[in-house]
Structure formats: C-alpha cells, structure tokens
C-alpha cells in the first residue's frame, strides 16, 4: 500500500507525560541536576519528547528554573521538544554517504514511510531525520534506528527495513536478525562490522589481560607518570598533548576529589577507530583508565559515550560489571589498600562540540555542551571544579600497553616526536575501507597503497577540521609535525567535486557550532554562503581574498578548537587546489554584483502591491 505523503503533518498531537512519572525518573537520579543528561535521555526514550510541562517538572525536582532545563534540552539534537515517532530513523548525511548512494536510500524511506525527511508520521509511529557522521564511514550509507545502527544501506535494504518496521518488527531485531546473539560483543559485531584490516603491535594484536594494571599496582603513582612521559605517548584525540605531562599536572596540588574521563565522543566525521576499540578492546580501555586513576589519585571515572554509540552501552556495562566482580574496579582494586576507582557511563546526545574537553565536562555536569574558558584547564579545575584527566579512548588503551611492555618498547616505534602506533579510520574511495593500526611516519602514498586507494585525487587527513591535500603532497608523512590526525583518512577520487565537499563540511560546522562566539556562529554561515557562490560561478576574484580574511577572523576570535579549525576545509583546499577556486570566478561588470537578483528581490512586493516595477520591469507600459 502506498501512503499519501502530502498529508503528513510536521508534528503530532500528544499529551504531556504524567508529572508523577517524571518526578519518579528524577528521583531515580537523586534529583541531581548534574545528571540532567540521564534524566532527559530517560524521558526522551520513554515518551519520545520533552514537553514544556515535563521541563517544569524536572526543574522543580532538580531545583533549577524551567529555562535552565530547556537550555539543556534544546541544545542537544537527540532531545526533542516536539513529539517524535516511536521509531526515529536518523540517516547519516555525511559527504561519504552522499557519494555512496544516500539519495536513493532517502527516497526509499520517504516513499515507504509516507513522510519526508524532518517529518513525523501522523500516527506517531515514525520520524525521519538527517544526522552528521555516526561513525560508520567505512560502511556508508548508515543510519540509526532509535538506539541501534544499520549499515551499508541500499535502496532494497531501505525498503526491507521500512517494511519490517511497518509490520511491527523491533529495531533491535532488524539490526541483529536471526537467532539472538550469545554475548553483547557478538551483538555489536553483528550490527556493525569492525573491519580491522591491519592489526599492529600495540592495540589490535594479541593483548594479555590486565598485564598493564598488574604492573601499575606494583610501582608508585609517580613511577607510572614517569613511564608515560618516557614513552613519548601523545593524545590520540586530535590535539596531541603529551599524556604523561597531563597526568603529572592532574596529580599535582591538593584536591579533595579527582576524576578520570574517557572521551568516547568521536564526532569528527570520518573517524571510527574508538568505536572499534570500544567493541574489540573494552577491557584494555578500562584497564587504561584504572591505571590513570592510580597515577593521579582519582576515585571516580566517567566514560563519555557519544549518543550515536548507545548500541555499545550494554557491552560496556557488561565489561564494567565483570571487572567489578573480578576486583578490578571498585574498592581495593587488586587487593591494594586505598586504591578505589569506579566508572559510570555518561551518554551524549548528538553534539559534535561535546568532544571538546571543556564542553564534554559541561555535558557531564548536566549543562548545555558549551566549551569553558581556558585557563583554568581541566587538569586544574575540571569536572565539578576538581582536577580532571580527559583522554581519548585510544590514549588510555596505549597507556595500559605501555605499562606492560615498557616505555622504551613504545618509544622505539614510529618517528621522532610521534612515537608508537596509531589507528587510522580509512573511508571513501578505496578498495578496503576500515581500521589500520600503523606506526607513525608512513607517507600518504604508502597508506594509499596499503588500503588500495592509489588513484586518489584528494585525501582529507583528520576529518573536516584537518587538512585536505592533493596528489602533489602525498609524500607528506603522518606524524604530529607534518600531517597530524585524530585518525580520519577520507579518500576522494577524481570524480568528486572538491567544492561540494567543502560546502558540506562548512554546513557541518554551521550545524555544530555551539553559538557562543559570534565569529564561529555567524562567520561559518558566511563562509558556507561564499562557497555556494563559488559553486554557482557567481564569485568575483576578490572573493578569494574575502575567504582568507574571514577565515583568519574566525580563527583569531573563536574560543574553542571548533571555531579555530572550522575554516580549515576552505583554507586547506585553497592551498592545495587554488585553480578550483580561480576557475570559478569572474570579474564583475561595472562593479554590479551578479549575485544580487533584483527580480527575485521585488517579486514579493509586486504580488502584495499588485503592480509591476516602473524601474525594473522592462516591458512595463502604461
């Protein structure tokens, strides 16, 4: 049966959930305002929206004002202030998915469910939305259905999924078909492929259980930190700060409490290595966090898991429970007196900026995900004002291995200044997209030959916030000093439109800016518009200078790394592919702008006034 699309309303009537139930949810979280994210998640999952009355009830329970609650609820894209469908389908609309058949998938979902993207069906059954990269770029196009993930979508698969959902099948059953999986790990693996293409010595090869932690309890916290410093380990989340130094700062000074937070937000489009570590090496990650806790004297830890990876939560909870039962978490870990440490999982809700450590801490505190002004740095005043170590998933995994095998073992791999191995998330136009663990220092050419992408025309290193290079720069090396990357390697062949990619990446930053700094909030909109003008062939030669000028203003005046790196798609392509821009420009005729369309500008007034223009309607005769 075909459903009529034109009648689907944008919103569905729904009564607000009973107040008593909301108060009960708040009570489950101790009426603690710092647990706002969990409260809102629970409400959203159960009732599919956060009603105005609900926000009032939450405000009452947590002793906040309604507007403070709304500030949080409206910040995150996974919380909805209007009723959402019982099943919400979020299609990843990254440029990779667009290049791999997203259009057909969208058309099929729209047809089969009878609603357009951005709409909710009238019976409240389905919502369809776009969302930025959900960390499945090696198996695009991908989508979330409520809290589970489906990958490698085609028109046929989309039709089958939509039909199954309409027949009442659960998202879980669709994502994990057949007999029910025997473990959380198997469930995750059947939903999403880990695609490990090359296992290196440190992380993805054979890893003995808890060898690093055993070593850590046999030496002093100071010795742990010294080992970290000697290993040369630098953060794998993008910024590359020296891990040992970070831990030393966090351990110093007096403090009542200290925290260890794992950054598993992995929002940079094209990055999915943390997802694979969370799936395949969860014990190693928690071991690494426990080592960090001993090093800095922290008793509490948080894993900030991006909302898109909610499907991994059961797996992580299972691992945490196993470790508690085995005495590897909790009190007197491994029988050591005074070594207490436990971890909770904080689920994010669809905000890229929450990967920035200050914003991440804000989010853990139950606030909108806005970065904090630095200094003070998290190691001085972090979560709830206490010294906090924030490290990437991969960084913690490395740390556990370094303690086991020794600093020198790690230091001897890679290159000067970039020691050890790194996970690369490779996607786009190549034969074997997936995860590669390689020592630092390979050139792009070498990497391309390993992954089967030699005919690449452009490579985006480090995702949108990184660097786009062309063939003449493929001999550059993957190190912190040359091409730094949090892990994303996105490959584009010669048939891809570079300006289309740049425009998409700018729209990503426009969407994800937290809005605090005007140059980031507004400047990126202007950059995106300017690129659109180039694509239409309406740009003037001066506009190239305008792109540079505006970019440097945004970089100089933004508060956090998002704004500081957001002009990179423009700046790095201007550098690598200058001709792409210049061929699209033409000088103005007499200084009159071609981009200004007088006919479009007066059309509304013409209709309201019911007359034509004396000045601009040439055939006007009276």
């Amino acid at each position: 049966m075909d459903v009529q699309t034109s009648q689907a309303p944008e919103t569905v009537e729904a009564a607000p959930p009973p107040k008593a139930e909301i108060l009960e949810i708040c009570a489950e979280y101790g009426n603690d305002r710092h647990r706002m994210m969990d409260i809102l998640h629970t409400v959203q999952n159960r009732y599919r929206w956060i009603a105005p009355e609900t926000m009032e009830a939450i405000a009452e329970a947590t002793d906040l004002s309604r507007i403070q609650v709304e500030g949080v609820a409206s910040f995150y894209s996974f919380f909805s202030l209007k009723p959402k469908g019982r099943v919400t389908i979020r299609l990843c609309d990254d440029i990779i998915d667009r290049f791999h058949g997203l259009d057909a998938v969208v058309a099929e979902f729209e047809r089969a469910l009878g609603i357009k993207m951005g709409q909710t069906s009238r019976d409240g059954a389905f919502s369809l939305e776009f969302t930025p990269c959900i960390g499945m770029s090696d198996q695009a196009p991908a989508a979330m259905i409520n809290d589970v993930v489906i990958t490698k979508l085609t028109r046929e698969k989309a039709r089958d999924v939509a039909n199954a959902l309409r027949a009442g099948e659960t998202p879980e059953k669709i994502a994990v078909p057949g007999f029910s999986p025997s473990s959380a790990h198997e469930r995750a693996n059947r939903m999403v492929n880990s695609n490990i293409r090359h296992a290196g010595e440190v992380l993805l090869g054979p890893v003995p259980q808890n060898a690093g932690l055993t070593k850590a309890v046999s030496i002093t916290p100071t010795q742990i930190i010294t080992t970290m410093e000697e290993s040369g380990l630098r953060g794998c989340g993008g910024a590359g700060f020296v891990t040992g130094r970070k831990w030393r700062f966090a351990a110093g000074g007096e403090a009542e409490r200290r925290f260890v937070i794992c950054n598993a937000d992995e929002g940079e489009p094209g990055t999915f290595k943390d997802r694979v570590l969370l799936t395949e090496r969860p014990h190693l990650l928690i071991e690494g966090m426990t080592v960090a806790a001993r090093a800095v004297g922290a008793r509490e830890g948080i894993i900030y898991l991006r909302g898109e990876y909610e499907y991994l939560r059961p797996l992580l909870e299972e691992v945490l429970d196993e470790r508690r039962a085995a005495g590897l978490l909790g009190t007197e870990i491994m029988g050591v007196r005074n070594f207490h440490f436990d971890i909770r999982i904080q689920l994010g809700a669809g905000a890229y900026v929450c990967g920035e450590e200050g914003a991440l801490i804000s989010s853990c505190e139950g606030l909108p995900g806005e970065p904090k002004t630095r200094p003070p740095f998290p190691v001085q005043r972090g979560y709830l004002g206490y010294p906090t170590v924030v490290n990437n998933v991969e960084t913690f995994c490395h740390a556990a291995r370094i303690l086991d095998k020794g600093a020198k073992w790690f230091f001897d791999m890679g290159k000067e200044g970039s020691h050890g191995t790194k996970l690369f998330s490779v996607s786009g136009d190549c034969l074997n997209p997936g995860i590669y663990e390689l020592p630092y220092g390979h050139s792009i050419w070498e990497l391309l030959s390993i992954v089967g992408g030699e005919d690449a025309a452009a490579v985006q290193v480090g995702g949108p916030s990184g660097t786009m290079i062309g063939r003449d720069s493929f001999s550059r090396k993957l190190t912190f000093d040359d091409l730094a990357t949090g892990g994303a390697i996105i490959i584009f062949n010669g048939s891809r439109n570079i300006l289309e990619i740049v425009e998409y990446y700018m729209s990503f930053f426009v969407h994800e800016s937290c809005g605090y700094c005007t140059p980031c909030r507004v400047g990126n909109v202007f950059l995106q518009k300017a690129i659109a003008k180039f694509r239409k062939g309406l740009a003037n030669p001066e506009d190239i200078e305008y792109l540079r000028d505006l970019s440097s203003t945004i970089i100089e005046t933004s508060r956090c790394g998002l704004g500081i790196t957001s002009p990179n798609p423009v700046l790095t392509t201007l550098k690598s592919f200058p001709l792409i821009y210049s061929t699209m420009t033409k000088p103005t005729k007499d200084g009159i702008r071609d981009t200004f369309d007088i006919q479009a500008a007066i059309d509304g007034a013409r209709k309201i006034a019911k007359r034509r223009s004396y000045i601009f309607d040439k055939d006007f005769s009276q």
Partner: protein
Amino acid sequence: MPELRKARIATASLAGCFGCHMAILDIDERLIGLMGLVEFDRSPVNDIKKFTKRCDIGIIEGGCCNEENVHVLQDFRRNCDVLIALGQCAIMGGLPAMRNAVMHSENPLLECLEEAYISGRFIRNTTHQIPNDPALPLVLDKVYPLSEVVKIDYNIPGCAPTGDVIYSTLASLLAGKFRGFERELIKFD
C-alpha cells in the same frame, strides 16, 4: 604645471536616517579647507538629482530597502570611480535590517507591512490600508547591505561615523595616501 582640477564628489542617502550625512558636518571648520579641494555633483546637499559628469568619489549612506535604492546605487557605481559606504546601515543594513529577522513566516514582507500599517498596537492609520501609491517604489524582500548589490571600495564604520574618521578618510583618499583606518578612529569600546 597645470592646476589640478577639483575632485568631484556625489552623495546619496538610501535606507538611512540622514544621520550619516549630518555627520559629514562634524568635520567642522576643516570643511572649509576640504571644500577647496572638492566640488559636489549629484547630492542632497545641493539638490542636484542627476549626475552631470563622472565623479571621483561617491558616498552612500543607508542600505537598500526598495527598488529605487538599488537603482540609485547602481547609477552611483556606474558613475563614480571610488564608491564609499558610509555608516553601519550602508555597511550591514543597520536598523532597517531588523525586519530581516522576520523570516519564520509564510510571507515575511506582508507580515511586516501589516504590522507596520494595520495590526501594530500603536498604529493610527485611518485608511486601514498598506500604502500603495503607484509612485511608491516596490519594497525589497529584505534589506540588503550595499556590498551585496554592487562592489564597494571602502567602508567607513560608525553609527554615525565620527567627523574625524570621515575627514581623515576623505583627506587621505584625495591625497592618494589612504592606507586603511587608524585603530583609534574605529575603536568603539
């Protein structure tokens, strides 16, 4: 050496309040020296309504809110070597551009006009009509800054710009020595 001819200047006020033109008078007594170097062509100060000759410098106050503004601006661009946007309305749209904020409506322009002439709480409009004399230029869908309609050579910031910044910009342009604004002149906080 033949005496240099005086530079010709034209000015216009589009969607502005005429405040920026008044600000030109804040040049004060330096105006007398300046007038030795320039003569005015098309401008509201002398009420010349059409260009009589090509001009060296055109100065525009206000953005574009209707079709006539666009027409005048294009005429200025075609007839002036150097075109200057004077003040925030010219540079960014300014106060009139507040109507651009009405955007989440089926027909933002109609909504604005209705509120301004019919439904606004403090309106006393005995005709209950939106004015629609054929002599009135058609309103644009939104207010545009000058630089979106034509190429602008220099922007003199301020609301209104100070006499000092206007004077120093004109004086240095006329001497062929303009090298950008001094920070002190465009620092507003």
